[in-house]
């Protein structure tokens, strides 16, 4: 398990990598100061591996990229937003278990 299948996105490339992506994208809004964000990192890595080819898992550091966090009203982290065709389909706030994230993913696939 590694970050192999995870893409790090910034404010600048968000449009290209998330909004215009041809696959659904699960964006994890996180920051280095947030313990629970670190706690869910292995879960996201596992999901990125398991759903490779069907879903992209992206991480956005809200500290370095405040524009997208503000645009999507993210004021709690971790927040995971699932985009499909540029639209928000699912949103999860807080460090939840794998099953709960997977339920959201299955709804859009």
């Amino acid at each position, binding site marked *: 398990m590694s970050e192999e299948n995870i893409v790090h996105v910034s404010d600048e490339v968000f449009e290209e990598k998330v909004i215009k992506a041809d696959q659904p994208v699960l964006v994890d809004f996180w920051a280095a*100061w947030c313990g629970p964000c670190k706690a869910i990192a292995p879960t996201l890595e596992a999901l990125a591996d398991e759903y490779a080819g069907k879903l992209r898992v992206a991480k956005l550091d809200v500290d370095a990229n405040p524009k997208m966090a503000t645009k999507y009203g993210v004021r709690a982290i971790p927040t995971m937003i699932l985009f499909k065709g540029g639209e928000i389909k699912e949103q999860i706030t807080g460090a939840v278990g794998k099953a709960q994230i997977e339920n959201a993913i299955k709804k859009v696939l």
Partner: protein
Amino acid sequence: MTSSEYDLVIIGGGPAGLTAGLYAARARLKTRLVEKLSPGGQVLTTDWVENYPGFPEGVSGFELMDKMRQQAERFDLEITSSEATAVERQGELFRLRHDGEELLSRTIVIATGALPNTLGVPGEAELTGKGVSYCATCDGPFYKESEVAVIGGGDTAAEEALFLTRFASQVHLCHRRDELRATGVLRERLKAEPKVRIHWSTTVTAIEKGESGQVSGAVLKDLKTGRTSRLPVQGVFLFVGTKPVTEFLKGFVELDSQGFVKTDPELATSQAGVWAAGDVRSKTLRQISTAVGDGAVAAYQAERYIENKFHVPRK
């Protein structure tokens, strides 16, 4: 014992679970720890821990838990990232269902901990993540130069209110009683902190949504006069106690009226071969220091039980 059977399965990887794991691994019990997230538990939401002995200057919650994990893994504790969903008896063993392959074990230590309570007021659920928060260290930096409210009067509420003064212009601490339960040193710091205003005998009755879809205020009620007022805050941080993670244990072990696991003084539950340790247990003081003590006792009791019941000589 087949290769897929364990001496001990520990459910939960906070301070209690990791300490039970450390003791069991050192005792050379075949042990597996199952944790929903990465190990660490609620301590991961704590910015700075000042009351865990051995760290005179304090230690970050993340660093402390990372060290506890490393220490247990040094003795080959197996840790699996998976959520336990059910545990039941199967003959002389226990069967644990989780996200992965089922586990069979001779003994179980329940160390699933607790999660922050919700208040259940209008607006709270809808605005969670949009101004309502249960983790100041995660979300505090989003409230630079903002006014925020902190609800609660215990150690956690006091610590988090003080933490939030780093970012917020004003922190309103609302407590339903007319004195804080928080420990002395925290009460002193709160009094000395000009950014903190304490609202005594006050509860929150609703959280308001603004035009942006985010929190725009909180409705307060003075419990002595019955008067209501409105605080124009952008954030509401709730620290009103915890609820145990025991839903999946109903009918398996006896729980108290709040859902915490009942134990005897040696941490045995109502089910022989099962112990409970840490915040999940029915007890008076929930701290990292009390959780690690519980973890050590539970692992030791499991070891003795295995020796007696399964007649395994000490390795």
